[in-house]
């Protein structure tokens, strides 16, 4: 109340302010404006209704819903299936691309040193070598232990490809080379191989000559088919010369 009394003077002044009246045309102007606003609203509503009707007509023309209502679900299903197919097709494309590139890269890596034609050739060679060896074996009749290169040895290409031979194979080769050169000392080492494998020793000169020829052939095969160290080759040659 104190606040009200404090500002009593100014409050009285504000209360005494002349009251502004609306003009005489206020009601008429207001009615005109209301009519205008209503007409605008009705115009908008009419426009909306007309556009709706037009849309309905278009839909009816397209689908013929009034005459053929069954077309609506059928059409919608077709559209959905079409969309799904497109989606699936696109997703497949997207998934395939990296796989193809991966496969290509793998092929590039693997196909560089060996091709199918290259792998087939050694097999043929092996077969030919095996046949030749069999013939030679028949000739020598195993007076000397035959160098079993056919089963254990690989083609030159294969050997080159392989960084190291498996231990069993290398041992076998070494053993075989030892049997060739040291006939006297062979018995000591022959224990590893076994006496049965050594077979009978050559006795006649002819037999010795034929043996030498076979050994030479065998060594040449070894040179051709294997990448042996120079020391090994020298040792083989020495043994042949001694013989």
């Amino acid at each position, binding site marked *: 109340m104190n*606040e009200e009394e404090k500002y009593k003077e100014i409050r009285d002044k504000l209360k005494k302010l002349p009251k502004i009246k*609306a003009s005489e045309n206020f009601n008429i102007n207001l009615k005109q404006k*209301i009519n205008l606003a209503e007409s605008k609203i009705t115009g908008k509503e009419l426009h909306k209704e007309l556009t709706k009707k037009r849309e309905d007509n278009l839909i009816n023309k397209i689908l013929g819903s009034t005459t053929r209502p069954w077309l609506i679900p059928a059409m919608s299903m077709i559209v959905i299936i079409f969309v799904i197919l497109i989606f699936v097709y696109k997703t497949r494309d997207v998934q395939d691309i990296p796989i193809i590139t991966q496969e290509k890269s793998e092929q590039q890596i693997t196909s560089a040193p060996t091709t199918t034609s290259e792998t087939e050739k050694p097999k043929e060679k092996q077969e030919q070598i095996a046949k030749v060896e069999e013939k030679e074996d028949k000739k020598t009749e195993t007076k000397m232990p035959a160098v079993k290169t056919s089963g254990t040895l690989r083609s030159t290409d294969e050997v080159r490809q392989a960084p190291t031979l498996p231990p069993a194979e290398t041992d076998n080769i070494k053993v075989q080379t030892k049997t060739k050169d040291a006939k006297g000392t062979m018995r000591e080492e022959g224990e590893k191989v076994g006496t049965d494998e050594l077979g009978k020793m050559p006795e006649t000169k002819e037999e010795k000559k034929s043996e030498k020829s076979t050994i030479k052939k065998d060594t040449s095969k070894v040179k051709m088919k294997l990448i042996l160290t120079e020391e090994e080759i020298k040792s083989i040659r020495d043994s042949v010369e001694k013989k």
Partner: protein
Amino acid sequence: MPDNKRNYKICSDEELIAFFQKEDIDAFNEIVDRYKDKLVNFIFRYTGSKEESEDIAQETFIKLYLNKKLYRDIAKFSTWFYTIALNITRTYKKKESKISTISISDYDPEHDKDFDIRSTVRNPEEEAGSVVESDYIQKAINSLEENFRAIIVLRDIEELEYEEISEILDIPLGTVKSRINRAREKLKDLLKDIYREN
């Protein structure tokens, strides 16, 4: 349909709007008759322009006419109606300020010479003096900040209750009271300055 026997003069505002919501145009006309002067006066004191006040008042009635069903019998009709009027006035002033950068405080009293002022029994000298004083007060009101101006007009010119003002301005009751006092203090200072200048 309007009831011919109905005496709208006796009806309360809430009853009138209820009738109008049932498409009773006479009820709307009664609302217009009751509120047009109040509304024009309120808007004039708030904006300081006679033409604008009439236009805004008419716009408020149009809003009421078109959105009559939005009123719910929760608040007083006068509160709801003043809120609409104040919102429209604020948006109107915002639009106006965007168009022209002329300040509201540049109020020219001579521009509003043809005001339809309520006739009071006064001699011409007294009347001339009161007109000059009312112009000064209006000038002071126009120079107030928007929040103070609204609260002063609603409380000290339109003589609305604190609760109603609180609802119209959407501020707490305590804020209304404190803000009114601050507005009065500012107005007092402004009037002093105006009197000194003249």
